[in-house]
């Protein structure tokens, strides 16, 4: 009896010790992977499309927008630095949870010819390799230990010691104890750092001085079968076996190399051979979707503006070629609508807070917001080519150029309320003008535009000028964000301290 008691004590002690360590492991674990895949775990049985690829995909396709526009349910599995080897294993892990109708695979790095992320080409610095391994954690940590994960780790990591940190990541993360934050003790949906949109990670920076350096057109394909190409074929085989349609992409970049051209040619050949769509945005000669000056965050990654355009385009292709259903009216898909509403609400909040003019102009277009935009006479904004570029994209007209010729002022009333069943209507005036009153979501609108004065009155209320001609008389630009009923929800003024992109015109 005494022996049994002692044995029981040992067992209880070690159970407590294991529970304690497991609890600690939960808190110290890096949360990136949990954040990225939290929604996937929740919605996996309703996903129709999976996007696979690198950071180009991660920053280039917004599944929330895709649902908002087309009702297509999708998840962005893209990962920074992700090779096709990793995409294959991401797909295999994801297939344990869902069977999508379609998989979209981005072909960036099809020319890369190495298998192991901890070895790479064997010539990279230790820091680069450590970074590569660290990035893989974002894609791997969330998957529970099982046959697929073990096979993935063995296939992607050569070093046995490093493999262990993927199979039990506490061996890596226990050292995080000294940098734990509030996020580490909160549930995924409450974390401040969870900025993922169904796996996507929008970039908000603008690539200010794009160096457009594209490789020459060529008919050459990759000289041999690279490891990445082999894994692309494995993805195609797996999808083929399971009846999953595949769409290939190569997302836009401002700079490309000969190997990129060869990669897209190889991809095009393969797509033709297999009869699958290939959306090739690489060749600058034919690519018209994305404006390199407003839509990139750096040489190779789209920003939030480019993301909107590419997502919208790909959504149309998916709807038309893959015949994917629109779930927006389906009550079972309420969770997707919740994400849309949350995303839109966050975007509006950001729009109201953002102090960057380019970000403002991009965001107004991205979320299709109603706004009043006014540039005073001789405004720096008017002389700034990038600002005018944004305005032209927004309106589709050249009135802003006429305003420049007249040296201002310029007014745009953007009515995106969809009143009377219509789409977005832009009311634009360049140069000094006092047009007839016109109807907008504000009401009956009166505009007086002089070189040194501007006024917008609503419904004959000439006492209240919507433009601030007192405190912000010298503002280079005034932007009023309007709510659905025409109420002003935010007023932003850019004074002389605002730094324009292109000051050469001054």
């Amino acid at each position, binding site marked *: 009896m005494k022996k049994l008691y002692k044995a029981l004590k040992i067992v209880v002690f070690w159970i407590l010790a294991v529970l304690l360590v497991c609890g600690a492991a939960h808190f110290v674990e890096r949360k990136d992977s949990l954040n990225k895949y939290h929604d996937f775990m929740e919605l996996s049985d309703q996903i129709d499309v999976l996007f696979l690829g690198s950071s180009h995909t991660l920053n280039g396709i917004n599944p929330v927008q895709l649902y908002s526009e087309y009702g297509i349910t999708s998840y962005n599995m893209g990962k920074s630095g992700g090779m096709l080897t990793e995409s294959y294993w991401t797909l295999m892990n994801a297939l344990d949870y869902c069977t999508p109708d379609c998989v979209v695979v981005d072909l960036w790095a099809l020319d890369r010819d190495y298998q192991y992320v901890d070895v790479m080409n064997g010539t990279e610095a230790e820091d680069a390799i450590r970074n590569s391994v660290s990035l893989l954690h974002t894609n791997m940590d969330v998957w529970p230990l099982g046959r697929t994960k073990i096979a993935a780790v063995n296939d992607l990591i050569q070093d046995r010691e490093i493999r*262990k*940190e993927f199979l039990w990541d506490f061996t890596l993360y226990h050292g995080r104890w000294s940098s734990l934050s509030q996020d580490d003790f909160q549930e995924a949906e409450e974390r401040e750092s969870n900025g993922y949109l169904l796996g996507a990670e929008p970039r908000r920076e603008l690539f200010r001085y794009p160096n457009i350096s594209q490789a020459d057109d060529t008919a050459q394909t990759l000289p041999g079968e690279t490891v990445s190409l082999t894994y692309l074929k494995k993805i195609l085989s797996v999808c083929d076996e399971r009846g999953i349609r595949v769409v290939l992409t190569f997302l836009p970049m401002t700079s490309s190399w000969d190997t990129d051209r060869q990669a897209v040619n190889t991809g095009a050949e393969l797509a033709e051979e297999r009869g699958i769509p290939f959306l090739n945005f690489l060749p600058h000669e034919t690519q018209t979707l994305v404006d390199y000056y407003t839509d990139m965050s750096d040489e190779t990654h789209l920003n939030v503006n480019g993301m909107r355009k590419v997502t919208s385009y790909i959504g149309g292709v998916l709807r038309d070629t893959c015949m994917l259903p629109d779930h927006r009216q389906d009550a079972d898909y309420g969770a997707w609508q919740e994400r849309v509403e949350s995303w839109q609400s966050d975007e509006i909040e950001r729009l109201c807070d953002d102090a960057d003019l380019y970000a403002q102009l991009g965001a107004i277009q991205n979320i299709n917001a109603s706004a009043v935009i006014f540039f005073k006479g001789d405004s720096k904004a008017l002389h700034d080519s990038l600002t005018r570029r944004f305005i032209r994209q927004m309106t589709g007209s050249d009135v802003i150029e006429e305003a420049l010729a007249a040296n201002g002022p310029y007014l745009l009333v953007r009515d995106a309320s969809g009143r009377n069943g219509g789409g977005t209507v832009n009311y634009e005036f360049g140069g000094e003008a006092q047009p007839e009153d016109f109807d907008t979501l504000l009401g009956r609108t009166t505009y007086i535009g002089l070189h040194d004065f501007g006024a917008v009155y609503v419904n004959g209320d000439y006492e209240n000028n919507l433009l601030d001609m007192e405190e912000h008389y010298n503002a280079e630009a005034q932007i009023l964000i309007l709510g659905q009923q025409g109420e002003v929800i935010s007023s932003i003024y850019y004074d002389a301290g605002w730094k324009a992109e292109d000051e050469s015109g001054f």
Partner: protein
Amino acid sequence: MEIVSIEFLIFFAIVVVVFHILPARARCGFLLLAGYLFYGSRDLRYLAVLAVATLVSWAGALLIDRGKTRSGRRSVCIALWAFHLVLLGYFKYAGFLTGGRIESLLLPVGISFYLFMACGYLMDVYYGRISPEKNIVRYALFVSFFPTILSGPIERAGNMLPQFSLTFLERVRFDTDRIRDGFVRMLWGFFMKLVLADRIAILTDTVYASPEQYGGALMAIVTVLYSFRIYCDFAGYSHIAVGMAQCLGIRVMENFKNPYLAESIPDFWRRWHISLSSWFRDYVYIPLGGNRKGIVRKYVNIMVVFLLSGLWHGAGWTFIVWGGLHGLYQVVGALLSGVRKKAAAFFGADQSRVSVRIVKILFTFGLVNLAWIFFQAPDLASVAQICSRFVHPKVWELFDGTICTLGLDRANVAVMFGGLALVGIVDLLDERGIRLSEKIASMRLWIRWPVYLAAILFIVLCGMWGTGYDSTSFIYYRF
């Protein structure tokens, strides 16, 4: 398989359970198998070297025992020692001794430990202190007992072989108290090694990598920290080894006994790496004549022993100077013994007074510290560079947060100093005969368990182990 790894802990848990389940007659063979599995998991070639050394020393001891004449036995013993030293020389010192012209193909880990154990065994048989072991399995287990094979203690056949006998092993029962005590000892060892030694290593390595960037005051602090790093590293492993053996019911000799509380350099060597210093005493110093052949010969013998001890620690001049410095401390200390006594009498210093003892402890610690500068340096030029920094103290570096920029953030620096304070307290209590582990073990379960569980959690979280934080290999592996 590293000792600081999940695999090893699982391996060890299985060994403990199976060992206690097995009948006594199978236990010896099982431990040998476990030892070979553990050692061979690093490199099978290491195992081949171990097997050769084991076979030669086992057969050699039988040959010595059968020797008819004293000179014949002596010749065999010398030849066998020469064989083992050549083996050690080739694998460990070939590059150093030939100026890099010859490099050994591999350096089997722990070779200095098991070859010294074999040499000690041969001399014990030669002097008739023990009978040669006829059972090859039992002898092989003595040489390759897995808790001690990598980093000691350097055990004696007279202590270990009887514990591997059938009669002894039959008495080893599954005693939960003994296993718990062994486990607690291991925990303390892991704390010293993973939480302290490897954490301090980050800081000291950063400073020693570019000493020209730091002032003398910070360098002095780092030198002191290095002293504790090396203590926590060596002693930590010894605690783990002793604890592991205790879990298996085997008693291994103590290797460290509060060395930084020593009041003199000879006292320090009675507390520091006891198994090695006593090995040199028994198998080098005394056979050379010890203090029996006059005062000059005694000092020469001391210098020889410490120079060899330095060389044992590493194939480099800095290690030899380190050993020589300790030899010199002892010789000068002995030479000045009369002067010191007169000075003490003149100042009326009572040797038993706490203040006098503290001064002696600090002075001894200072001398040991100075010697460690040579021990850690890659070459003598680096020592000169470090010493040159003391001319530029830059005292403000101690207060402006520089210490938190040396690879450890504020929280980790706090853990380091907190941990060192705990080690100091435990050593001071031990010096007074109070064993903290025994005190905790005697407490009620609801106090004892939370302490043990908190210790496990603390070590697991704050220990520098795993891939992300480059858990450095035990320093003793190099020897």
